[in-house]
């Protein structure tokens, strides 16, 4: 009976574990997670948990098996970091609460990503990133002490949601973004500019096109100095300037690393080794590019796909990815800011054209589709979820732009 180790105890790792069991794998299964917590759901951290509306218990992820998490019969190694991997020897060394080595026949790499930090502010208290439950509770405890002014650095999704949540709690918030338009790479310039307007409408002081020069204070943060010389008073700084895939432990392992773990089209990174979630990059047949997707939905579907590939590979002695379908999803995500829900399926970046097909920017309730060459490649909606479902189907079918326009005309 082969043994399988899953490194990473978050969404992709858990969904891989569930799928392994659902497919009938009943051998020994070990999950290594660097956080002390069992798997939990991260999206509410920047919203309901930070707002103080939800506690940890609400973050349990659904487990389909009768008996929940315990029924999956997993040896949990939590508070434990995988320090290194040797693909040829098929061993992992551990550090933390568990130490020593783990041997495996099959391995799922699902170690996620870590927030980037701003260089050069030393160890001032009051500067935070937000990725984990513990991060979130740290930021929340600062908010509970009623800071006078919050500065959020980075107007990507995490920064934007944190800014919205802090405004919702009544704090003064400045949102600083080095790029002239927030979220341009993700949602395009028009919608990016609209999100900045929405923050301004809610009373956020939005500073675009200016970076952070330095952060000062005695032992706690007191001031943020911007590149244009502006000095912002701050007693809480939340930094949301992107994440880097957690591949440090894999250097020298034999796996190919390049902005993530490089997999084949079926999520296989080496014989008996698959990768999934934020850490994994795979060649997308649909989009003709190697993608690394940091969204919740991708962690679910890629975790499941990688698990099926791994079982096929173990059964076929290293040739299993030939036997399974390619992993070829239409990426999808959502972001909640104030009372607006933004959803995007497919791609908006690098599109040749955007067209609003329902509602309007003025109403802040609309759906827009994106064209690349003669194909529809993306749909983005604000408070219009049904439209996303409709056009997503067309994107999945690689439909022509004209077909999408016909759909729009038909309503």
């Amino acid at each position: 009976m082969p043994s399988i180790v899953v490194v990473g105890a978050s969404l992709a790792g858990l969904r891989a574990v569930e799928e392994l069991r659902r497919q009938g794998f009943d051998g020994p299964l070990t999950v290594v997670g660097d956080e002390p917590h069992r798997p939990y759901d991260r999206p509410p951290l920047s919203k309901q948990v930070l707002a103080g509306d939800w506690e940890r218990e609400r973050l349990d992820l659904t487990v389909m098996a009768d008996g929940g998490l315990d029924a999956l019969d997993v040896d949990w190694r939590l508070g434990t970091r995988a320090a290194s991997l040797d693909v040829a020897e098929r061993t992992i060394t551990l550090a933390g609460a568990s130490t020593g080595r783990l041997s495996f026949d099959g391995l799922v790499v699902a170690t996620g990503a870590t927030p980037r930090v701003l260089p050069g502010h030393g160890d001032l208290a009051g500067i935070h990133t937000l990725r984990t439950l513990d991060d979130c509770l740290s930021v929340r405890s600062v908010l509970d002490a009623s800071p006078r002014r919050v500065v959020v650095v980075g107007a990507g999704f995490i920064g934007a949601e944190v800014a919205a949540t802090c405004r919702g709690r009544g704090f003064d918030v400045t949102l600083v973004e080095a790029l002239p338009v927030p979220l341009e790479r993700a949602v395009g310039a028009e919608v990016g500019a609209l999100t900045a307007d929405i923050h301004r409408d809610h009373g956020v002081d939005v500073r675009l096109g200016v970076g952070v020069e330095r952060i000062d204070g005695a032992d706690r943060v007191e001031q943020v100095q911007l590149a244009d010389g502006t000095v912002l008073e701050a007693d809480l700084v939340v930094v949301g300037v992107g994440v880097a895939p957690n591949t440090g432990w894999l250097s020298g392992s034999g796996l190919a690393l390049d902005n993530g773990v490089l997999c084949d089209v079926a999520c296989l990174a080496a014989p008996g080794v698959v990768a999934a979630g934020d850490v994994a990059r795979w060649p997308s047949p649909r989009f003709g590019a190697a993608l690394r997707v940091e969204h919740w939905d991708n962690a679910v579907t890629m975790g499941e796909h990688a698990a099926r590939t791994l079982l096929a590979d173990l059964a076929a002695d290293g040739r299993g990815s030939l036997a399974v379908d390619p992993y070829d999803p239409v990426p999808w995500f959502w972001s909640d800011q104030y009372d607006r829900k933004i959803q995007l399926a497919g791609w908006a970046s690098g599109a040749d054209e955007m067209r609003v097909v329902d509602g309007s920017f003025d109403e802040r309730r609309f759906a827009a589709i994106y064209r690349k060459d003669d194909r529809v490649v993306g749909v983005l909606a604000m408070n219009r979820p049904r439209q996303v479902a409709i056009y997503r189907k067309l994107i999945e079918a690689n439909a022509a732009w004209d077909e999408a326009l016909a759909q729009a005309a038909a309503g």
Partner: protein
Amino acid sequence: MGYRVVVDFDLCESNARCMEAAPEVFEVRDDDFLYILDETPPDELRAKVEEAVRLCPKAAVSIADD
């Protein structure tokens, strides 16, 4: 064994992933609200409903076994 589809409408935000997984059972209509088309679907749809449960980002969908 029969089963029932349960949606917690306090959690549902009409993300429509359930509709993509099991259009026979879930429909987000033009008013952007989710409607359950069949609360007691046949057994052959159960795998699709389970996929809907897994894909719901709000964990608003569940299955109750009767």
